[in-house]
């Protein structure tokens, strides 16, 4: 990215300069000069396009892990006021609606797991349905699927896929309101019948990790984290149902935008006012997909516990937190000196509530919301905590991952899956996958430096580092 097009307003904050003759577009990017220099120019183009959508409040924002996406950049955050014609955009949520991470802390130490790691990896690979075309054991009737879309993780807990008490540590307590299963097409529901409790593919994974270092002892204590502890992270979303909703409403909203005279700088930013028939229809379907994703991660949590129990009968895998990073939610925020109900799009960005926020569980009230920056399979991930400044800086949002540094095409030219798997095994990281091509596309070198992204996230006042997690086993989707 050409830094000449940006104006630094702080050590980690860059405002997009207004170009002569161009319409006004307020956009801010977070990160250090090196992170921004290596971002594709398309990130700048996309976040500027987002800034021109109707009803935007404050600037459109790009997180430090931002990269070129479709419509919004991945790592894009934008808030819209329905009182001022604010819109909802399917392209601002993405096809994998409510993709996110469920993080589980265990009572196991790395030395207990190390000698069993190969067998544990094999069992997780066998028990966790992963990869393109792989279905789960659970088959739901049409009525049961509607119950999932209304009930989310709460439905899954009622079906004995988890404990009632852990719902406190799932965003929205495991279920969003406003889901309208009747807004979800028959095809979307059919696609999901065999996909509940599946991981998917691409950048989705289940990882067994070890806490390698603690950055913030007080927050780590609140989160129940200690050095040497085994953690499990599950990254996936709403599967075929969400993908189908996303693709169908992309066209619906593109046509609505045309009909309503909304000038789209990029057709992928297909949108409609929050308060319009098409907008309301999408919101009902999107909320159904969010509940689907929350239920999916709850079922995968259950399958993971079952596998661990086989090797470690006394193991406890407790939900540390479950947070989505592809959503749009109505949230109350301060803007221009008063409280507004804004629709906050986070596409590849995690909510990061500050300490003291009333929606946080009591246990995390002083520390702030847990935020996970999922890194590549060869480097590691960070647990962070929402900061006091995250509300004013980014509507309480933060980075969600390391962020891609190169395309899948380039990665395939540079690496081979089998060689990567062998090299990682030498480093004590066991990969299990049905797709060597997928491993090459997701090569650690294809991602930005996760340490740098986490440091920039903290420096920008979005979320502060709590712990670093090193991968031991990765089941790749």
């Amino acid at each position, binding site marked *: 990215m050409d830094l000449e097009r940006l104006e630094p307003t702080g050590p980690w904050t860059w405002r997009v300069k207004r170009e002569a003759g161009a319409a006004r577009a307020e956009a801010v990017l977070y990160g250090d000069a090196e992170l921004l220099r290596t971002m594709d120019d398309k990130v700048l183009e996309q976040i500027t396009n987002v800034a021109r959508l109707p009803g935007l409040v404050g600037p459109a924002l790009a997180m430090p892990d931002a990269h070129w996406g*479709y419509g919004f950049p991945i790592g894009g955050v934008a808030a819209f006021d329905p009182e001022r014609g604010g819109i909802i955009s399917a392209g601002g949520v993405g096809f994998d609606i409510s993709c996110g991470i469920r993080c589980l802390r265990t009572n196991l130490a790395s030395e207990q797991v190390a000698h069993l790691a190969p067998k544990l990896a094999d069992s997780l690979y066998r028990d966790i349905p992963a990869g393109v075309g792989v279905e789960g054991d659970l088959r739901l009737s049409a009525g049961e699927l509607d119950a999932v879309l209304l009930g989310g993780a709460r439905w899954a807990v009622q079906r004995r896929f988890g404990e009632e008490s852990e719902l406190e540590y799932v965003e929205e307590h495991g279920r969003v309101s406003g889901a309208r299963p009747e807004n979800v097409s028959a095809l979307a529901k059919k*696609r999901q019948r065999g996909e509940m409790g599946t991981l998917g593919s691409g950048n989705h994974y289940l990882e067994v990790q070890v806490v390698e270092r603690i950055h913030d002892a007080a927050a780590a204590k609140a989160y129940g984290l200690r050095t040497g502890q085994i953690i499990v992270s599950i990254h996936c979303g709403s599967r075929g149902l969400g993908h189908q909703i996303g693709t169908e409403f992309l066209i619906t909203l593109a046509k609505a935008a045309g009909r309503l005279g909304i000038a789209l700088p990029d057709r992928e930013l297909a949108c409609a006012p929050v308060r319009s028939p098409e907008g309301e229809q999408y919101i009902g379907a999107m909320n159904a997909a969010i509940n689907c994703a929350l239920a999916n991660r709850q079922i995968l949590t259950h399958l993971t516990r079952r596998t661990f129990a086989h090797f470690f009968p006394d193991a406890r895998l407790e939900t540390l937190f479950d947070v989505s990073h592809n959503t749009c939610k109505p949230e109350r925020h301060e803007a221009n000196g008063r409280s507004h109900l804004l629709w906050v799009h986070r596409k590849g960005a995690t909510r990061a509530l500050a300490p003291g926020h009333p929606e946080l569980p009591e246990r995390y009230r002083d520390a702030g919301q847990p935020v996970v920056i999922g890194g590549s399979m060869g480097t590691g991930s960070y647990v962070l905590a929402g900061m006091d400044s995250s509300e004013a800086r980014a509507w309480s949002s933060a980075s969600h991952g390391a962020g891609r540094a190169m395309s899948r095409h380039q990665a395939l030219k540079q690496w081979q899956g089998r060689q990567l798997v062998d090299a990682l095994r030498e480093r004590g990281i066991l990969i299990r996958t049905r797709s060597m091509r997928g491993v090459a596309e997701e090569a650690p070198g294809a991602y930005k430096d996760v340490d740098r992204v986490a440091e920039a996230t903290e420096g920008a006042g979005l979320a502060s580092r709590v712990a670093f997690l090193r991968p031991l086993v990765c089941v790749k989707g």
Partner: protein
Amino acid sequence: MPAQTSEQQHGAQRFDYFEHDADIGIIGRGATVEQAFESAAEAAFAVTADLRSLRETQEVSVSFVEDDLELALPQWLNALIGAARERAVALRRFALSRDGSRWSGRAWGEPWRADMERGTEVKGATLTMLSVKQRDGGWEARCVIDV
């Protein structure tokens, strides 16, 4: 990009790919719009499986109504992706016809087998970098697919 090479047609690659950071850009070419869309479908499904290794034991049909030529490309691809996932099949060959704004397509492939080398799941076709244009005496269709 995929394991197999894109087949040749009239001296040009029938399908190809272009760079995109997070996802994959696909290009389909043909003498007609319909053929270009068929080639684009090959490009998309070659991301999920090795097309040359697939048998044609199942057929799926899709249809849609679309009068916007550009929007017809994601409509076609997303209809195929939905049908393939609904039927749990990997697709390898595609045929598309059009009567005004009514599009009808067929595709052939086989159910997923345990021993298949799997690629990456395609979540859907986006409107990013979407274009359907006449080029070099034929048609070229391109867009980014989300994986």
